[in-house]
């Protein structure tokens, strides 16, 4: 490989800090400024080239916020963040792919390892008394025939092109999937000049009306949704519910999609097929929390919305089951940017307090600011209740497993088809791990992040786990899927960086 130098460079000594925060989206940024306000030394490591995460992803061409929601809140937060960075209280590391968070041994400190700057790929290590994981979430995609074609992308990808680069994904776009996120994606594309052929929602949004109290408690979200709907109406974008895109067609690139009506379990309604021409399909069925670093650090997880997805178990102060390790935002269960900011605030306070006591200092004059406040707790509770309704209304229903055929690729990296998955199950593979060993889904670059949930659902269906809800076998299946989330290295790491770890005094990832 041409990336390996002749000589292994000496490892650079780790940076020491009070709190390491992984992720600079709404949760991570809020945690960072909160902890820095309390006088704590903070290091923020983020994969992106600019702060903001996915929700506030921006570039020089989109810095006016015209494609963003809650932009004034972000500019205020970013100014506080920049002031702390300028004052040296926050050490901000953009373009850092964190691949391991090592737990303290014998009362020591956490060690965070990252690959810095993808164009150079150097090792960076940070030692911290407390860690906040705010790595967010990514779109859940369901495999359908043709979904690997250029032009088929996640809803988040279309949004990222627009928010980050001011580039429109295509001319004729179908936005499909389930969940409220489809609305801003479609509205943004229409605003930017794309022809949005249809918004295809698999769920039944009218079901929100069955939970009036919970929806009313988070009434601020209603004008936001209303604004997107009004914009879509202005552009005459048809909204379909209980429909799905079940196939994508094209040779070298997408030219059309097949849309069908769905039954209550999302099974295809025969005879309802129609074809829509499109050069882009932007699809997303909710989000999957990015919990790999938490899983590997030993933090307790719980099943999140959707088969094979997990979220961190946290206490009232956002602390995970590992003392000193906190989680905020989508990693604790997908709930949106408002909830992420509140969790970031609570985690920032609590982590500052934990770091201060770990370093043998009282929290000092900031102690008053570090306690709980009931108003914040109530806001968090209301937003979590709303998120639970959202999960229920838009939950992926098992009928989707009838959409792909035997030739449909499930694992994009290793190009494993549904047919090969089924053959492995026929050979006796009765859990995700055995399916993986026999058919190789999840063993490529993305480490099963994209296909993991689909593989879990397809394996469960074909091995009959769905019939064992709550039974011991079901628990085995859940544990099996949970193990599949844990990865010793959460990002690709050049061998030379691992060699550096082995020769240096840094503890190597277990």
């Amino acid at each position, binding site marked *: *490989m*041409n*990336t390996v130098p002749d000589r292994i460079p000496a490892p650079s000594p780790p940076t020491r800090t009070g709190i390491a925060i992984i992720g600079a989206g709404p949760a991570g940024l809020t945690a960072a400024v909160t902890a820095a306000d309390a006088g704590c030394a903070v290091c923020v490591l983020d*994969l*992106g*080239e600019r702060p903001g995460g*996915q929700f506030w992803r921006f*570039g*020089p*061409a989109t810095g006016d916020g015209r494609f963003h929601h809650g932009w004034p809140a972000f500019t205020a937060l970013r100014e506080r963040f920049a002031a702390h960075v300028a004052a040296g209280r926050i050490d901000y590391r953009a373009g850092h792919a964190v691949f391991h968070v090592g737990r303290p041994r014998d009362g020591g400190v956490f060690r965070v390892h990252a690959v810095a700057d*993808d*164009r*150079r*790929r150097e090792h960076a290590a940070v030692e911290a008394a407390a860690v906040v994981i705010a790595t967010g979430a*990514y*779109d859940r*995609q369901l495999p359908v025939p043709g979904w*690997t*074609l*250029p*032009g*088929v*992308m*996640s809803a*988040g*990808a*279309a*949004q*990222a*092109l627009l928010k*980050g*680069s*001011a*580039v*429109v*994904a*295509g001319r004729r776009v179908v936005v499909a999937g389930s969940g409220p996120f489809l609305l801003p994606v479609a509205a943004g594309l229409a605003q*930017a*000049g794309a022809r949005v052929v249809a918004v295809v929602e698999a769920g039944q949004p009218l079901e929100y009306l069955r939970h009036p109290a919970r929806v009313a408690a988070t009434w601020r979200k209603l004008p936001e949704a209303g604004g997107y709907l009004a914009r879509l109406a202005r552009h005459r974008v048809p909204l379909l519910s209980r429909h799905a895109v079940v196939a994508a067609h094209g040779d*070298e*690139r*997408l030219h059309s999609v097949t849309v069908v009506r769905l039954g209550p379990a999302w099974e295809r309604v025969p005879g309802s097929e129609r074809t829509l021409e499109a*050069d*882009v399909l932007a699809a997303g069925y909710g989000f999957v929390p*990015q919990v790999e670093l938490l899983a590997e650090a030993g933090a307790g997880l719980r099943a999140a919305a959707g088969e094979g997805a997990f979220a961190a178990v946290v206490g009232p102060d956002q602390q995970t089951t590992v003392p000193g390790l906190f989680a905020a935002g989508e990693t604790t269960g997908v709930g949106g940017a408002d909830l992420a900011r509140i969790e970031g605030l609570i985690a920032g306070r609590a982590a500052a307090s934990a770091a201060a006591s770990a370093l043998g200092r009282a929290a000092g004059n900031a102690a008053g600011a570090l306690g709980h406040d009931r108003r914040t707790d109530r806001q968090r509770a209301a937003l979590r209740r709303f998120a639970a309704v959202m999960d229920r209304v838009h939950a992926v229903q098992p009928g989707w497993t009838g959409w792909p055929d035997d030739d449909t690729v499930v694992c*994009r*990296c290793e*190009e494993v088809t549904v047919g090969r998955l089924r053959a492995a199950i026929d050979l006796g593979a009765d859990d995700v791990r055995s399916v993986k060993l026999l058919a190789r889904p999840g063993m*490529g*670059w*993305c480490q099963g*992040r*994209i296909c993991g949930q689909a593989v879990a659902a397809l394996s469960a269906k074909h091995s009959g786990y769905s019939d064992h809800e709550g039974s011991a076998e079901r628990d085995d299946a859940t544990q099996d899927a949970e193990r599949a989330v844990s990865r010793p290295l959460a990002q*690709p790491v050049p061998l030379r960086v691992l060699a550096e770890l082995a020769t240096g005094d840094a503890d190597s990832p277990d």
Partner: protein
Amino acid sequence: MPEHPRPRIDITVDGVAWSVPADCTIAAAFTEHGQPGWRRTRRARPRGLNCGIGVCFDCLVTVNGMPGIRACLADARPGDVICTEEGSGFGEHRS
């Protein structure tokens, strides 16, 4: 889109000079250029942008000799020499 014409930069893609918008990712540059696919898998199937946020590794390109760069994360910089990849993502190129 922007009221004023965007400033543009020059890059090279597979030996061809491209003018692309300044301040955009390499994936956005391909998209704006009208080319939604740029990688080929080991089975020679076409791929382009998929997750768009650094998770799926489907959009890998070689930039200035460094293979396996996520086009969705990396900003295009003036003078970048970009080669599309075919194969495993470790820098094999179309001959």
